[in-house]
């Protein structure tokens, strides 16, 4: 009998197990595939190793404006992938080590819920049955594969890929069509564009980068277009195959884009089937497990964290949701908040944002004031970005004088955004933020600049 059984070893699952084990609970973590989940094995982390290689290659190829020229810069895709595998392997063993340190038992195999009796939940893994007082479901999500003609065949012959396969691609395709201009699609577009593929992004909406602030996503698109990526917005893919992707445009025309390879990145779907949720009557809506602010489902003792609850499909959301659920199990008061959830696109240039966008403010009827500033107000940005056109946009609550949103397009945005998140999460007033000292010269100072430019 365990205090806690965790289904799924991705960020939500391993964090729940680690925190619960660290608090002295007996924990069993069941993972059907690889500890670390999609994030570590075929998502966030591996894509970052690729993007770093691309960045170095880009600097090597385009150093002239900084007075640096190099010849014969080459990208070795096989070496890139093997380094990625090494990084992933090291990180996976790091997580296993941490789990062991927190006295978490790991069981590999598919965990299937058998039932719940007298508050005890039983889960089968293979022939073994385990019992636990609490269950955290962290089964994550999988790429949506649309029923478009040619997709099924393409996946079996390797010309159509999801995030999983593309991160193991050891050759650089001559042309790549990215279906879906969200975070995953844009990061891969950025990578393959840099390393030499002819990249086309096809997006159904009229904008890229999903919920990002429109002004910034438009600017990012311009940056990409300048680098040679083709964008087809308001377009719908109708067929895939024979080295091309067929799509219809907004005005109903049918067109083709060359596609040695095609990446499907139209979205992700919560994994809520195939492991016995129905046996204990967990409420699922549109494929997602319904949870409250403590991560509780409708069944006492059963929690759901991470992508499977569909609230905010990000690894760091899963981390925090896991902690909230474990705190709730431990009887510690905690609740999940999403108003300061940072989002990052590790593209080149990077984009990061937290809090409200202008669009979300308008939709929710939130009063806001904005200040937009070129990133060149930061000395370090200018020193390092010849011809850089990044911007910062901050949104401020005029009544409460607090930061509502912060949007960055430029170098180090991914690393800087956390400071804006802290300001939003802790609801500092603008006058409080003005008292914060930023190191000089750094790109992070752009936040301070924007705050002081705001009237």
């Amino acid at each position, binding site marked *: 009998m365990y205090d806690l059984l965790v289904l799924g070893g991705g960020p939500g699952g391993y964090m729940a197990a680690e925190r619960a084990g660290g608090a002295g609970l007996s924990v069993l973590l069941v993972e059907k595939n690889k500890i670390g989940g999609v994030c570590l094995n075929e998502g966030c982390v591996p894509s970052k190793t690729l993007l770093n290689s691309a960045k170095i290659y880009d600097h090597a190829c385009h150093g002239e404006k900084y007075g640096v020229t190099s010849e014969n810069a080459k990208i070795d895709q096989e070496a890139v992938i093997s380094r990625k595998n090494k990084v992933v392997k090291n990180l996976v063993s790091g997580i296993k080590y941490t789990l062991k340190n927190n006295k978490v038992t790991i069981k590999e195999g598919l965990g299937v819920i058998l039932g719940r009796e007298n508050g005890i939940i039983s889960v089968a893994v293979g022939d073994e049955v385990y019992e636990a007082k609490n269950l955290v479901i962290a089964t994550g999500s999988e790429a949506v594969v649309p029923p478009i003609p040619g997709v099924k065949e393409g996946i079996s012959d390797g010309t159509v890929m999801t995030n999983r396969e593309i991160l193991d691609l050891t050759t650089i395709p001559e042309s790549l069509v990215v279906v879906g201009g969200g975070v995953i699609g844009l990061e891969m577009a950025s990578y393959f564009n840099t390393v030499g593929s002819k990249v086309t992004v096809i997006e159904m909406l009229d904008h890229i980068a999903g919920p990002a602030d429109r002004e910034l996503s438009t600017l990012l698109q311009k940056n990409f277009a300048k680098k040679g990526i083709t964008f087809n917005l308001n377009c719908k893919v109708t067929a895939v195959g024979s080295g091309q992707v067929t799509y219809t445009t907004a005005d109903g025309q049918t067109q083709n884009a060359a596609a040695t390879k095609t990446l499907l990145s139209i979205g992700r779907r919560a994994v809520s089937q195939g492991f016995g949720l129905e046996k204990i009557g967990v*409420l699922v809506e549109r494929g997602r497990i319904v949870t409250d602010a403590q991560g509780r489902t409708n069944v006492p003792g059963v929690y759901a964290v991470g992508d499977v609850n569909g609230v905010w499909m990000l690894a760091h959301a899963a981390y925090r949701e896991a902690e909230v659920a474990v705190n709730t199990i431990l009887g510690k008061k905690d609740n999940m*908040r999403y108003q300061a959830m940072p989002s990052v696109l590790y593209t080149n240039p990077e984009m990061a944002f937290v809090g409200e966008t202008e669009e979300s403010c308008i939709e929710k009827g939130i009063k806001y004031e904005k200040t937009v500033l070129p990133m060149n107000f930061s000395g370090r940005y200018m020193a390092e970005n010849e011809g850089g056109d990044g911007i910062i946009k901050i949104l401020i609550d005029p009544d*409460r004088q607090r930061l509502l949103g912060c949007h960055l397009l430029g170098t180090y945005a991914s690393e800087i955004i956390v400071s804006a998140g802290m300001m939003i999460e802790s609801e500092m007033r603008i006058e409080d933020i003005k008292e914060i000292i930023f190191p000089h010269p750094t790109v992070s100072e752009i936040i301070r600049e924007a705050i002081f430019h705001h009237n």
Partner: protein
Amino acid sequence: MATPVIMPRQGQSVESCIIGKWHKQAGDVVKAGDLLFTYETDKATFDEASKVDGTLLAVFFAEGDDVPCLMNVCVIGEPGESFAEFNPNGAETAAAAPEVSPSVPSPVSDEPAKGSAETVAAPAGDLPGAISPRARNLAEKAGADLRFALSSGPNGRVIERDVLELIASGKLATSAAGKGYDAQLTGTGIGGRVSVADIEKGIVSAETASPSLPAASSPAVSGPESYTEKHSNIRKVIARSMQASLSQMAQLTLNTTFDASDVLALRSKFKKAGEAGLKAEQGFTLAENVPTINDIILYAASRVLLHHPACNAHYDEEKMTYFNHVHMGVAVDTPRGLMVPTVFNTDLMSLSTLSVEAKAAINACKTGAINPDALRGGTFTVTNLGTMGIESFTPVINPPQTCILGVDTITTRVREVNGELKGYPAMGLSLTFDHRALDGAPAAKFLKELVKALENFSLLLMQ
């Protein structure tokens, strides 16, 4: 020669006092009789006036500091005189004195900043009446909402430790949320703080804010299920004393009633005399200050107790201590909880004196200005729930006393007089006694004599 001013000792039981407010600053010219500072014990507030003329040379403690009794608090003398030798903290910190600025305006009122709490909304709950400047400053810094603070200081004053406890218990609001919100809100912001979203949504508790899941079968609750408050010192004292009483004594209660006709007639006579213009200066003190029924019972009990030494005594494991005079404990309900001041030697007092003294003690408790020594030394206690319509109860003895008399309400009873049923006002008395100290019969005898005294109170008064 400079003169030090010490922290006075207020009663033998007081070890130290907290400085509440400085009325003078270092450098101010003071005259004998000028108010120097206000200081507080657990239960009362006092003023310290200067005894000499001169200049306040140095101040060694700040508002909110807990200063041991008899320690030097400040020095008065001629400008330029040396005072370092008086500094209890050592010479090196004497220069810190000018920092003490009793009238430090709070940052909020000082600077009506855009977005500060005051410009957002009016506070939706009541702020505690008195807040020490130190507590206020700390609360401002930490974003603690003073409305949630206990007021464990004298006079219901919020002092620094209340704010520290408040911070520890997590009742905080974010900077932007400020303080303009409903005190019922449960914080769901960072660290449990009340956030802007909490205010806007009017979330009452994190639980009820959750999406309503089908299995949740309990009816919708509109308020929080419960809330917690740490015990005030006075609550802790009451708890200790009451538990000790009930766990260590063999107490039981006898109930009886007395015919209150005489007492009521007498009171109405006093009242009428007062209305007719009879004045204290003419010798009619009872007409001008009409005693309450409780005063009358205190008076009667003080007389009758002298005949029943076991009821006017202290009991401990070894011995009984009998008192030759009655030191009457008077239970008082105060905003901070039950307090029992002692009116000493009530057996020697006239009814009018006893009435005035009891009233003074009760008021001192209610305002928190009671001398701590007046809360000890009782030999017998009277507690009155009759004003709330209680017909009979079991009062709990205040150890080491042996008895406590509960005064109940007046009900109309009937009795047969010459074959006729007649109503009369019957007032209840509930005497709890410690069976370790005395047996049932002696306790009943005391009660019987008390009934007789009260039923013939006019005669008792004439003696």
